């Protein structure tokens, strides 16, 4: 029995080694062979060319900055918007979920606005916020930091992208809180305000984290799309578009790899947070 278990574990280990190392390596090899024999690197660059770009992330491309600087700009935009969306959506979700009348009043509006693609907000957001940046909001015209690239319009679009999945998941989480936990808290002397903080919030935490995970994934999608729109001048999405206009396919693919890698990394981090903070999930007794 024990031996069999060990054997299963070994097979799994071997399979996952194949899945993570061997199969991707094979794809790269096929790509390389195909690209070299095609001999048209401006359409389909070989792996080696792309990796050369990835290994020099600080190299400036034309006037648009480097892979690294543009990636950082995108990340700062996403994290700012996501942070704002998290705070407002979780707070609103808990309040709406626990006060019935508020939910009845607000939910229809949410359901009507939610299906709208966040990108569709961009022209409107740019008109409203012009090209105002974060430092300008607090009266500094130019701060000489990365925040000069963080336009309010961008943050708004990211905010919209993250807000709805976080709100709906938080709402579901709060609605699903077992009545027993509320009764228990009540008999132990919790006031209504304490119940928010010590029952609704922790009990809804698994769903909130699910919402945050979906939210940050969507924010990352949205920023790339938003940066590809005309009128932007920085960000990894912008660099991708700019390189494409200049037939620099090696940079295009490098940017794609970076975008994909960061998306996967964010998802992984959020999942790790779920395991860490809500280890009790699904084990209620």
């Amino acid at each position: 029995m024990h031996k069999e278990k060990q054997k299963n574990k070994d097979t799994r280990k071997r399979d996952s080694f194949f899945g993570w190392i061997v199969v991707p390596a094979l794809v790269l090899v096929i790509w390389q062979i195909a690209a070299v024999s095609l001999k048209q690197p401006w359409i389909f660059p070989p792996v080696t060319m792309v990796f050369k770009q990835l290994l020099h992330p600080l190299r400036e491309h034309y006037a648009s900055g480097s892979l690294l600087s543009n990636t950082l700009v995108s990340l700062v935009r996403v994290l700012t918007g996501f942070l704002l969306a998290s705070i407002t959506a979780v707070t609103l979700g808990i309040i709406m979920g626990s006060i019935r009348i508020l939910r009845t009043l607000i939910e229809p509006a949410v359901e009507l606005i939610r299906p709208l693609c966040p990108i569709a907000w961009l022209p409107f957001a740019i008109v409203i916020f012009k090209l105002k940046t974060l430092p300008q909001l607090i009266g500094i015209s130019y701060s000489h930091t990365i925040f000069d690239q963080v336009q309010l319009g961008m943050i708004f679009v990211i905010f919209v992208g993250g807000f709805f999945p976080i709100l709906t998941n938080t709402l579901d989480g709060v609605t699903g809180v077992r009545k027993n936990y509320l009764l228990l808290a009540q008999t132990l002397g919790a006031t209504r305000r304490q119940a928010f903080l010590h029952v609704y919030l922790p009990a809804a935490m698994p769903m909130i984290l699910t919402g945050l995970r979906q939210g940050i994934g969507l924010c990352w999608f949205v920023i790339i799309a938003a940066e590809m729109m005309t009128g932007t001048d920085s960000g990894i999405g912008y660099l991708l578009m700019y390189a494409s206009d200049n037939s620099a396919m090696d940079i295009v693919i490098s940017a794609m790899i970076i975008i994909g890698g960061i998306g996967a990394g964010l998802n992984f981090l959020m999942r790790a947070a779920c395991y860490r903070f809500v280890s009790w999930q699904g084990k209620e007794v």
Partner: protein
Amino acid sequence: MSGCDNKKHSEEKPVVLEVCGIGKTFHSGSSRQTEALKNVSFAVRHGEFVTVVGATGCGKTTLLNIIAGLDTPDDGQLHLYNGLHFGENIAYVFQHYTLFPWRSVLGNVSFGLQMRRIAKSERKDRARQLICEVGLENFEDAYPHELSGGMRQRAAIAQALAIKPKLLLMDEPFGALDDSTRTELQQMLTGLWREHHMTILFVTHNIDEALMLGEKIFVFTERPGRIAKELKIKMQGPRNKTTKEFTELFIKIRGLLSTQMD
């Protein structure tokens, strides 16, 4: 108040809880009604251990919920004396979901103290002491899902005791446990009751359990739920299920419950 004559026996300890003609009807669907409680009256005196025994679904839980302030009666009145107050010194132990799954044993036991804004170090000390009293000294950092059913109920009792309840309500707290664990916990509960000088109202469908624990037993009948009989137990010291007295009482209660089922 005319229907309440429970206060007459003044030679005994003071009444802490008085239930006068309480009735409760649940409406389900358009016209279906279930009369959960009808004209229930009784009094519980300070320091008493009262068990309420009756078939599952006879309104016992509804009664406890009303006493705990989690539900309101349609008829009748509930009187609390001796400074008894909802959310202050009335604790309630349920059968299931008795602990917050996101808190450790220590966090659960100190919950009530935290709600009362007692300093962290003090509430930890008090919680630790209670955790020892219920025999969980090595498990204060464990989470509910890591504990056995019996251990969870031990923690739930410590959690309830932390608010220093004058009245402890228990709704089939040992209902999901195996026999030997149940006996262990019954003994522990009796000990804690003596030490902490509380009044306990304990609901169960298990006649054995009602007899093992209660000084006074209310036999509850179903649909509508009401008290068919009030029994005083005079057995001294630790009770023995094999005695003649115990068996006779058992048969008597069984008889009372089964006549109602016909």
